[in-house]
Structure formats: C-alpha cells, structure tokens
C-alpha cells in the first residue's frame, strides 16, 4: 500500500511567488497526497488544532513546504508548530502520537548554496539553520529527513526552477511508493 503523504504548505505571499508556485503545480495533482494550504485555510491564524492533529495521524510522511524566511519558517507555520504539536499529543503524557512518522522540509531559499558557509554572507552552513526543525521532530519521536532545498530561488532560471519542481515531484512519488517506513530507506 502506498505511503500516505501530507504536504503542509505555508506561503503568505503566494500570489507573487515564483518558485513555490511552480513546485506546487508540479505536485498538487499527485494522486493520493493531501495538500494542505495553511494560509488559505487559516487567513486569520485561527488554526483548527483538532483537525490538524487528525490530519497528522492519518499520514505517514509530513512535508512542510515553505519559503525560507529569516532563517526559519513563515509565521503561520510557526504558529502551526506552536499550537498543533501540543503536549498530550506530540509529546508529554499521553503524547508522542506522531512517533515513527517522517518529517521533511521542502524549502525555497533566497541565498545561494555558497552563501551558506562561514565565509558567505549568511554566516553559517545551511545545516545549522535546520537544527530547530530537526530537534523538534526528534523531540516528538519523529524521523527527520534531510530537507529538499531550492537555493537561489529568486534568481535561478526558469528551466532550473522547472527542473527543481520536477525533482520535488519525483521525491514525493518515491516517498509515496518506495519508502520503507521501517528502515526509512527508499528502495
């Protein structure tokens, strides 16, 4: 049986997005995945906690697709983490209900690959900025995949964007059909 994939998408300015727009249109129609457009769902930031938790429980892999904003996630996705991953559900007594599920960030990043280094203007290797996500996943007993990243998201060519979106689509289909949930390996 195919793995169940949830894409929690967060982009506060989707109307002027370039990269994420192409990516979304590449994956949206994949059969069997759940695409959850958070900014469209909760324009007033009033997240339906129960509904979001239910969605999580019904899926095996949770993808957070978002542009990289100030070395982190857009505000609504942070709000989502703060209220949905609550004690008694994601951790704490009666919690850890997401144990064994997979966490994957799919991000578009303004800076180039090179800029994320000690010498680059972003100061640190990109991995460093992933720590909060990784630790959040680990804390909740989830398994953390290396993120899918599109660097230089503002300047790359049209072709490169389409390539990236194509790769993103392939990744999701692989996760859906070839991921061994027990080992975390793609066959």
């Amino acid at each position, binding site marked *: 049986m195919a793995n169940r994939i949830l894409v929690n998408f967060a982009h*506060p*300015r*989707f*109307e*002027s*997005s*370039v990269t994420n727009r192409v990516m979304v249109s590449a994956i949206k129609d994949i059969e069997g995945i759940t695409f959850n457009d958070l*900014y*469209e769902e909760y*324009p*007033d930031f009033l997240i339906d906690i129960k509904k979001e938790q239910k969605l999580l429980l019904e899926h095996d892999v949770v993808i957070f697709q978002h542009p990289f904003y100030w070395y982190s996630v857009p505000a*609504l996705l942070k709000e989502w983490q703060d209220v949905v991953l609550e004690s008694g559900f994601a951790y704490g007594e009666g919690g850890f209900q997401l144990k064994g599920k997979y966490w994957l960030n799919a991000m578009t990043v*303004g*800076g*180039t690959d090179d*800029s994320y280094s*000690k010498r680059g*203007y972003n*100061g*640190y290797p990109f991995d460093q900025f992933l720590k909060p996500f990784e630790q959040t996943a680990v804390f909740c007993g989830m398994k953390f995949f290396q993120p899918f990243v599109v660097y*230089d998201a*503002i*300047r790359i060519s049209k072709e490169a964007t389409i390539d990236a979106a194509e790769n993103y689509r392939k990744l999701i289909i692989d996760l859906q059909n070839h991921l061994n949930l027990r080992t975390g390996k793609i066959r």
Partner: protein
Amino acid sequence: MDTESFLFKAFIFLVAAVIGVPIAKRLGLGSVLGYLIAGVLIGPFVFGLVGRDVEDIMHFAEFGVVMMLFLVGLELEPKKLWRMRMPILGLGGLQVLFTGFLFTIIAMLFDQTWQAALAIGMVLALSSTAIVLQTLTEKGLMKTDSGRSSFSVLLFQDIAIIPMLALMPLLASAPVEIINDDHGLTQLQGWQQTLAVVGSIVFIILLGRFLIQPIFNLIARTGLKEIFIATSLLLVIGITLVMQWVGLSPALGAFLAGVVLAESEYRHELEVGLGPFKSLLLGLFFITVGASINLDLLMQDTASIISLVLGLIIIKVIVLFLLAKFFKMPLMENLIFSFALAQGGEFAFVLFSFAAQNGVLTEHMISTLTVVVALSMALTPLLMILSEKVLQPLFDRQELSRDYDEIDDGETPVIVAGYGRFGQIVSRLLRSQGFQTTLLEYDAVQIDLVRKFGTKAFYGDVTNLDLLKAAGAENAKMIVLSVDNVDKAIIVTELCRKNFPELKIFARAKGRREAYEIKKAGAHCVIRETLGSALLLGREALVELGYRKYQAQRAAQTFLHYDNMHMEELTELWGDEKQYILAATEKAELLEAVLKSDIQDRAQIQNQSWDTDSRSQINDNIDIKQSPNED
C-alpha cells in the same frame, strides 16, 4: 367649472396649505392639523374663501386616501400581509364589533330607533385612515407595533364598509325607492353581487400578476417618465372605478392592487410617481375636512356637540385600549395605538349621505354627527400629542415601579442593555467565556421570544436610573449598550457617566454620526454595527475576485485599523461641519493610499532579492559583525 374660478380656488387652497402647514409643523402639531386649521380658516364659516361646494372637492380629494392605500399596499408583500391576518381579523374585527355595539346601545338610549341606532353605531366604529396613517408616518411610527396594529384595524374597517353599505338600505324605516347610479350593483341580486365582488378581487389579483407587469415593461421602454406616471394614475383610477361599480371600497381595492405589485420591480417607480399626487390630494382632503366643519352648528349647540365629541373619543379610546391590552400590546405602544384611532373616519361622510338617501337618519342627526366626526378628526393630532407628551411619560414612570421585572441576577460584571440581535451576539460571546450578563430589554415580545430559548431577559427601560441601579450598575464592570436607538444610547451613556463613574460603557452605533454622538456623550468604546459585517463581506468578495484569503484578510484588517484610527481623530472635529468634511475626505484618501501601498510594498519585497548582489552593496558600506563563534 370655469377656469378662472378653478384657478382661483386652487390658489386659495395652495396658499392655505403653504402658510398653514409650515406653521403647524413649527409648532410641533404635525402637517395634518396644519391642513385642518387652514381648512377651517378658508371655509365658509370664517373667511368664506371657498363656498359650500367644498363637499364636492372633498369627494374628489378622497381619492388621495385611495392612493395612500395603494402605496401602503406596495410596501406589504403578500407574505407580510398574511402574517398580519391575526391582528387584522382579531384586533380589527373585535374593534368594529365592540365599538359599533356600544354606540348602537348609546344611540338607543338617546331615543333612536334601533335601525337608526345601528346605522350610527356602524358609522362611528370607523376611524380615519387618512389622518391616522399620515400622522403615524410623520411620527415615524408606521413600522412599530402600534403602527402596524393601527394599520390592521384600519384595514379591517375598510373591509367592513362593504357589509355596512349593504345593510344601510335594509335599515330604512320606511321602504324607499333607491335609485343609485353610483353603485351599479345595487340593482343586482344578492348572489350576483357576491359573485361580482369576488370576481373583481380575482380580477385585480390577475391584473396585477399578469397584465400590469408587461404593460409597465412596455411603458418603461418608451423612457417617457410622464407616460409612466400617467399609467400609474390610470391603474389606480381604473381600480377605483371598478370597485365603485361593484360597491367595494376603492381604498381596499387599491390596497389589494398595491399588495399584488409589492414584489414588482416597478415598485419604487410607482412610489416615486404617485407619492406627490397622494400627498397633495391628502392635503386637499384635510383642508376640505376642516372647511366642512359646520361652525354655525357648533356655535348654536356648543355644549352638546362638545360632549358628543368627547364621548366619541373617550369610548373609542377605552375600547381600543382594552382590546390592545387583551392582545398583550405593551403599555407604551398601546397608548399610541388607542389614541391614534380614536376618531370618526372620512368614510362616515359617505355613509351618512348614503343613510340620508335611504332615510335611515334624519337630516339634523346627520349634520350634527358630521360635525362631531369632523371635529374628532381634527382633534386627533392634538390627542396624539397629549398621549405622547403627557400620558406616556406619566405611565413610563408608573410602569417602572409596577410592571418592570424584578432583577434577581445577583452580581454580574456585565449589563447588556438591549437584547436584540446585536446584544444577543455580544452576550453569548461573553457568556461562552464564563462572564455572567444581566440582560435588559424593552420589547416584551422579544423577551418572550428569548425566554422560549431558555434565556432570561428582564423587562425595563434602560434610560431609567432606578432600573440601571436595580440591574446592578453600581457594582458591574461594564454596560454593553446594544440598543438600536441613538437617543437612548446617549441618554444612558450620560446617566452612567454621571452616576456610575467606574462603569465602562461599550456601545453599539448605527453609523458614523451616531458613533460620534455616543462617543461625545462619554462612551468608552463605540462600535459601528455595520462596519464589521461589511468588511467581512468585502473580504469574501475579494476572495471571490481571486485574492488569497490571507491577503483579503489583511486588506480588511488594515481598513478596519485605519478607519478606527481616523474615526477617533475625527471625533474631535465632529460638530464643525466644514472642518469635518474636509478632514474626513482627506482621511478617506489616506486610507485608500495606505491600502494601495500595502499591496505595492509586498510586490516590491519580492523584487528585492535575497541574493549576493544586493548583499554586497551593503557589505561595501557596513562592516558586518562577525559571528562570535568565528574561529
């Protein structure tokens, strides 16, 4: 009528109206009284500017009443009318029955034959549609409980005229030859007449449903305004003629036609087109009523006529009051209702002349009663002023100590004054968060309604200090003023500021103007009732037009934020018209600019790239701090 004297008469009538009405209005007496007094003055008994043919003019002017009912009908869709069937049949029916019965008995006590007494009773049971509706409309009471009830009663009376006209000849003490060309149907058999009556009603309904619409479509397409108006007039006059022919009240027929057309898209055009005619004719009608008051008779027989007038009014008030009480009308509404309808009606003049033809009543009787009815009509505006200015405030006080609910809510932090649609939402939100609210409401029907849903609201007028105290205003944290009446809101605000300085006042306002005024009166927070919902709708509209929801949300929030801010700044200028308009226009432009720039800025953010090029420009200028863990 030769033109010269016609123009002269028109001149006299218009002068009387133009002088009389504004003066009466200035004095707070209402236009009806203005017309009536003007009529008395130009009538044959004072200046004699119009002669005794005033009655002909009156019959012509009665057409104004027909038009008025047509226009009233236009505002009443069949559904609404159906909902009024209870008050029409119950309140109206019983009113005619009881009042008629009482006057019959009284007339018999005055040595009238039972036939004559019954005729008098029937005629006096009627009230004046023209005066009542005009006065209530002018006071803005047509949409209230009392207005609607009054209208129901008047409507029933109009229906009752049919059997009355049929009964009149039967009451004739001596069989008289009736030759009546006006009422073509009097020659017909009873069953034929019934058939004709039903037929004509069906005719009107079918006419309105199927024929008038296409005709108006056609006429409207010509684009000729005066032809449209002419068609409207034609319609009403045509109906009047048909009704007269079958012996129905033309007013009733016109009313029916109005109801049938209430859902037509030409409704407003009809209202606009016929409105001025109606007003002019009604005015003319009132003047002729004034002019026909026989002052000679009044002089000769002052005492008995005055006591008859008073008797008529008092008995009518009592019957109306008791009936309304029986139908559970709140006291204040009842005081308006029972005083509004306490007069004889214009139809009495018709019925009297009809009765005279039939020999049911003597000539002297009729001229006396005509004066009595006319005087009672003239007194109506004054009576209503009496009720409004003297009785209502009086009972308002009394009612508090007697009828207002005992408030047993204990200590509650929040008082909600006005538990209508608005107050309910506020109160439910507060209660859902665990705050107790004390609910005050002035409309007994509303209280009963919410009680059915298990909510307890207390009856009382919030503008009364004692009631506020009883509701716990001294200890409460806040009063939510959700009454829909600005004047009340202002009164309560001032009362609370003066007597309960600690109490926070959160008020609802209809619009900007009201908001300013309540704010100026000292409310702490004023929310315009339509703003929130309008913005919600606007937000949904933006989404439908292709906006992302978050963007639409931001636009609406931004609008709300700036609008509130400007509102606050403009409150200072409110009262200074010129300054205010200037500033308000400026603010409106500013708001628009803000909303536009929000969108532009956001588009630009995207263009300002997060890339090496733009970074390096900055790096050249500023020496960026190295991170502390740099080795």
